[in-house]
């Protein structure tokens, strides 16, 4: 551990802010907002997020290493959460998918309805795009004083809502995290001792969650310079190589 690491503990990412379609503000809030369902993880472009971090990264900063470590740690958590969101919701007790269709008939029915709604969404997207750029008059007089009515309950509800975001959300409902980045880092390093390995081979036997964490671990090792990631074409096979 370096002297810098010893001196600066926690909050290393506190002045990193992000501008995304779904959220703009301090990065350290994003995770909390996601866990509280204020921002849907599904909509957070992780790749863009990593790009923003790399763009804002200052390798000469005193706590650069700590910041990198913190970022990789939290980005790995986001990958984990996103992979869970993408897998079907499982009922904790029975392990059965939540609200599953009772019959193939019902499944077909639901998918048909979803297809229609999806088509409707495309129509709406096109109409909103076609009508963008209409700006309203700036000449509307302010309403007469005293016309506006504010409900005090809505104000106190809003205060409760906004102010309670400051406390870390409960994460128990996410269930135990049974695999860690450290574990998968060890797996990767063991594999690398025998030479380059493709991500696909490495993760072939793994479940979805482990695959996601392995990916985060590979990124983390690459950040630390302990692994080189090679990908010859976009979306092509990813190869992990020992450092030069």
């Amino acid at each position: 551990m370096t002297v810098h690491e010893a001196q600066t503990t926690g909050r290393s990412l506190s002045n990193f802010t992000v501008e995304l379609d779904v959220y703009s503000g301090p990065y350290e809030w994003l995770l909390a907002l996601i866990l509280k369902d204020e921002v849907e993880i599904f909509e957070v472009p992780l790749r863009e997020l990593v790009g923003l971090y790399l763009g804002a990264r200052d390798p000469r900063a005193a706590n650069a290493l700590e910041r990198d470590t913190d970022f990789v740690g939290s980005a790995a958590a986001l990958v984990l959460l996103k992979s869970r969101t993408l897998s079907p919701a499982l009922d904790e007790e029975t392990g059965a998918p939540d609200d599953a269709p009772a019959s193939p008939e019902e499944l077909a029915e639901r998918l048909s309805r979803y297809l229609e709604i999806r088509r409707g969404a495309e129509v709406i997207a096109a109409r909103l795009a076609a009508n963008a750029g209409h700006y309203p008059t700036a000449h509307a007089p302010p309403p007469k004083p005293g016309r506006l009515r504010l409900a005090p309950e809505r104000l106190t509800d809003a205060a409760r809502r906004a102010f309670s975001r400051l406390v870390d959300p409960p994460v128990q409902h996410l269930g135990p995290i049974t695999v860690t980045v450290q574990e998968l880092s060890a797996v990767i390093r063991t594999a690398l001792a025998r030479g380059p390995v493709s991500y696909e081979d490495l993760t072939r036997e793994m479940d979805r969650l482990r695959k996601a964490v392995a990916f985060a671990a590979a990124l983390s090792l690459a950040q630390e310079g302990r692994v080189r990631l090679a990908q010859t074409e976009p979306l092509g096979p990813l190869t992990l190589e020992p450092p030069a």
Partner: protein
Amino acid sequence: MRERAEHTTERRSAASPRPAYLVEAVLFASARPVSPAALAAATGLPDGALKAALAELEARYSPDNSGIVLRNVARGYLLSTNPACAPAVERFRDEARPAPLSGAAHEVLSSALYLGPVTRAGISRVRGVNSDAVVRNLLERGLLAEVGVDADHPGSPALLDVTDEFLTAAGAASREDFAPLDSLVSPEELSRLRERVLSATDPPAEAP
């Protein structure tokens, strides 16, 4: 109303701005669509004169004729800048065009438009994923609103529907401007989908 109309007519004999000018001035002062009834009340114009004034203004404020356009949206009339001039307006206000909504948001709006009023749970069921965060975002943007509660369900969950702001943003005079849901997907496509699902989930031997 009648009294006002007479009053205005009387006064017009003196100063008398033309009917179209009165409507133009009122629309200029409103950032939201103004219903024909509200226009009539403010200007004191009888129905025929109001219609004629609006027709005149629609020609005057057409996209080919002006930097300001008149649109019939959300059951009312609204003047706004011509989108062809939007880059100049955005530079002037030093504001970027708002980012387009996400695909998830479009699906939630589609659910509310076609199935609304509908609960959050109803939207999530149709989409197959929890939609609460997207709904919250659309409520904040004023494109969805809570319009009542579903008293038939435990906890009386709120019912959501699209707003006039949504209709305005989509350039729609009313929800009837949107093609009906069952016209969006062809019967052939639906039956192909059905076949695929049933053959994938049901062993053919078990089919009756």
